[in-house]
């Protein structure tokens, strides 16, 4: 009975678990540290903007459309444009987790919450068992590291502005523990342009009840409100600290950009509350996430796994795959679903004794996986962030002619690669 255990229940872990089940793993277990799935997906919401549209359509054509379907069906707004970004879809951050949880259970995935892995048992060049904080041992044939790169508190203190009480909730559930690290594979850290370690999450959330009703009305109608930043509060320096280079545009410093994801997504890494309240309409604003949005945001990219293009972790064990932020300086849910899906699919293949699948670079998703891996091997590459929605990777997609919003063209591209529905089929 091929058995795959996925450590980490964020977007990448959920995608990996679904893909492993669909590829034919009999038993798939997700181990999640906190009390809910999706990790930073609980506060995210932006899908399908710019090249993410193409990536999502490629994944749907490849047979890994389930999570995109859920995002689409819980979207509050479809096809909105905001500075630097076209055709964004915004899912409702309150509705998404229960929907994903149900879908995983329907697909036969077992979900363990408040299950923090703190130890492994390694034998003969493979991980045999992962051990939870309470001592429970969980065996599997193949493991997926989808533990992410956020935190811990000490990393946020050392390289950011301290623990800001973000959705990672390290103080309650214990900080992230890297499976790659436990396995003894050497990890790398992303850097900021000035060489400092890590990068800061790019957006906050405001409580909807604390924002002027007129703004909320516009927001719910259009999905988007742009308020000019009072001149004395414009601070462009902050843009360089962000993880999300696709939002590091002057427009995001000169304006307060609000998106409707159920609560209000504030498109800046952080902002002192007293300054925020000087913006007309936000006089009573309160942070919903992170709670200390006044001083900072979560830090990420502290521990990247060395990997190949099949998402296998390179190191002293041969039955470990990785997805999500572990897999590179990839920003975003779409990116996590892409890498997580391939990791889960190949984990099932490994458990079944089959060769792994590598996506060709004729596909935007295959090209991204390879390009990010190659870039991460250089110092300059470690200072960048990669997303289908902007910056270097989107520029590369456009230059290679891979960016399109034509669903049929994407389906034809996937068919030409001979991979239509590959993630939806059991591995022969």
């Amino acid at each position, binding site marked *: 009975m091929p058995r795959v255990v996925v450590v980490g229940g964020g977007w990448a872990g959920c995608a990996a678990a679904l893909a492993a089940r669909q590829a034919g793993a009999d038993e798939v277990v997700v181990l999640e540290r906190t009390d809910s799935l999706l990790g930073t997906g609980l506060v995210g919401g932006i899908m399908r903007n710019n090249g993410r549209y193409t990536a999502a359509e490629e994944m749907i054509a490849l047979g890994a459309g389930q999570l995109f379907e859920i995002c689409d069906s819980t979207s509050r707004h479809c096809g909105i444009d905001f500075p630097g970004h076209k055709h964004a879809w915004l899912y409702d951050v309150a509705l998404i987790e229960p929907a994903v949880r149900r879908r995983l*259970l329907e697909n036969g995935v*077992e979900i*363990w919450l*408040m299950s923090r892995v703190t130890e492994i048992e390694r034998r003969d060049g493979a991980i045999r068992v992962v051990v939870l904080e*309470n001592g429970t041992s*969980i065996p599997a044939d193949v493991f997926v590291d989808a533990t992410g790169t956020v935190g811990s508190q*000490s990393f946020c203190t050392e390289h950011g502005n301290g623990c800001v009480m973000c959705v990672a909730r390290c103080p309650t559930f214990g900080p992230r523990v890297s499976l790659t690290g436990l396995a003894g594979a050497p990890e790398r850290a992303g850097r900021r342009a000035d060489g400092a370690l890590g990068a800061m999450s790019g957006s906050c959330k405001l409580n909807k009840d604390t924002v002027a009703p007129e703004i909320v009305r516009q927001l719910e109608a259009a999905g988007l409100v742009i308020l000019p930043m009072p001149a004395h509060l414009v601070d462009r320096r902050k843009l360089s600290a962000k993880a999300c280079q696709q939002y590091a545009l002057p427009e995001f410093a000169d304006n307060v950009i609000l998106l409707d994801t159920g609560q209000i997504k504030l498109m800046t890494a952080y902002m002192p509350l007293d300054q925020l309240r000087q913006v007309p309409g936000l006089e009573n604003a309160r942070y919903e996430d992170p709670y200390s949005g006044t001083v900072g945001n979560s830090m990420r990219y502290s521990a990247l796994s060395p990997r190949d293009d099949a998402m296998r972790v390179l190191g002293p064990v041969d039955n470990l795959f990785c997805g999500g932020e572990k897999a590179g300086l990839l920003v975003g849910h779409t990116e996590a679903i892409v890498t997580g899906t391939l990791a889960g699919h190949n984990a099932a293949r490994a458990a079944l004794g089959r060769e792994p699948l590598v996506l060709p670079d004729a596909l935007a998703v295959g090209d991204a996986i390879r390009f990010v891996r190659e870039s991460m091997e250089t110092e300059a590459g470690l200072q960048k962030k990669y997303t289908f929605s902007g910056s270097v990777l989107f520029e590369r997609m456009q230059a290679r002619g891979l960016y399109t919003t034509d669903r049929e063209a994407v389906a034809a591209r996937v068919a030409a690669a001979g991979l239509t529905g590959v993630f939806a089929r059991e591995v022969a």
Partner: protein
Amino acid sequence: MAYMITAECINCGACELDCPVRAIAPAPSQFRIDPDVCVECDGYFDVPRCQHVCPVNACTPARAAYLFKARALANRGAPPRVYRPARAGASPQP
């Protein structure tokens, strides 16, 4: 008895520098006191040095700290919450 450093440790290193018996060393995510070396500063200082210099009160007597932590972090190390798919012959019980 020895002292210990709780998860509040901010990795400043003040305790390591001041420990008279060099019982403190960096561990993967924070500093750690070796309980076999720590003498609670008996014969050196009235107040254990690490507790005195720690800026975040992370250095405390081991037992009290343990009890505090167990209370405060009730969710950590508790039995996991398991959701099983509705199908026959799923995974073995934990």
